[in-house]
């Protein structure tokens, strides 16, 4: 984005600082909170790069759900880290460096950010852009793709997400709700 030349750099610096802090901190609660900030920052970065739907998903899943799941785990276990191995190891470092190097090398083959001749812009996108107005008749093309062109796909996803939500809710809060109901029901019967 040409209006804000330095904003990518600043946000990436924040991301790197948070990543190092998460690794260095022994207090796992603080690490979970920092991971929440990490997700919010990634979401801002995606927004700045015009990937608004990705940013939205990142904020909901990364900053919302996974923070809650991590906190739920911490509530059941210890929130202090006790590393078993503190000594420096060469092989894992080499493996990480090699993987990172391969990933960076792979980015050289990717089309430049915002390149209009990238393959992704020449597959089905032009068809959607040209025909959405006639086929569907809604102004937002992303909505048309999600709700109509890929309607069955979205329907299946929604079912999966609803099932997952119900399962997670039962796992996280179901027991406490049932217990509270059992405790309070006799009191209500006495009052009648």
């Amino acid at each position: 984005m040409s209006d804000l030349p330095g904003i990518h750099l600043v946000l990436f610096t924040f991301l790197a600082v948070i990543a190092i802090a998460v690794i260095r901190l022994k207090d796992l609660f603080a690490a979970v909170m920092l991971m929440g900030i990490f997700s919010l920052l990634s979401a801002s970065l995606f927004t700045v790069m015009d990937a608004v739907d990705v940013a939205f998903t990142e904020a909901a899943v990364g900053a919302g759900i996974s923070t809650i799941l991590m906190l739920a785990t911490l509530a059941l276990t210890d929130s202090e880290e006790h590393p078993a191995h503190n000594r420096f190891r060469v092989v894992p470092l080499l493996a990480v460096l090699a993987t990172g190097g391969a990933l960076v090398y792979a980015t050289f083959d990717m089309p430049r950010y915002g390149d209009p001749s990238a393959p992704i812009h020449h597959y089905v996108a032009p068809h959607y852009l040209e025909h959405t107005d006639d086929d569907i008749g809604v102004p937002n093309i992303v909505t048309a793709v999600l709700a109509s062109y890929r309607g069955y796909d979205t329907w299946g996803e929604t079912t999966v997400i609803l099932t997952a939500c119900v399962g997670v809710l039962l796992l996280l809060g179901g027991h406490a709700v049932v217990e509270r109901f059992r405790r309070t029901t006799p009191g209500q019967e006495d009052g009648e």
Partner: protein
Amino acid sequence: MTGTGVLGAATIAIVVCMGLSLIRSIAGPTVFDRILAVNSFGTKTVLLIALIGYLSGRPDFLDLALVYALMNFVGTVAAMKFTRFGDLAGVEDDDSEEIF
């Protein structure tokens, strides 16, 4: 042009504020410092997205900023509940707080 200058200055100020709450969330000695830092960082994210929307001439980012604000609030409440009760369904043991 003056409007862009004001928005740019505000963006820089917000980014500086983000840095400050980042420092607090890393350094913060207690749990509540960190929760407050994350909450404040979320608010700064909302403001940053709104400002970027107006700077790049796309004020429709404002909807996204509003949804972030809601999510930030819900997330903070959930974090507080976990800190206080250890689960999401916890309420005070006080009888006046019963939900059924």
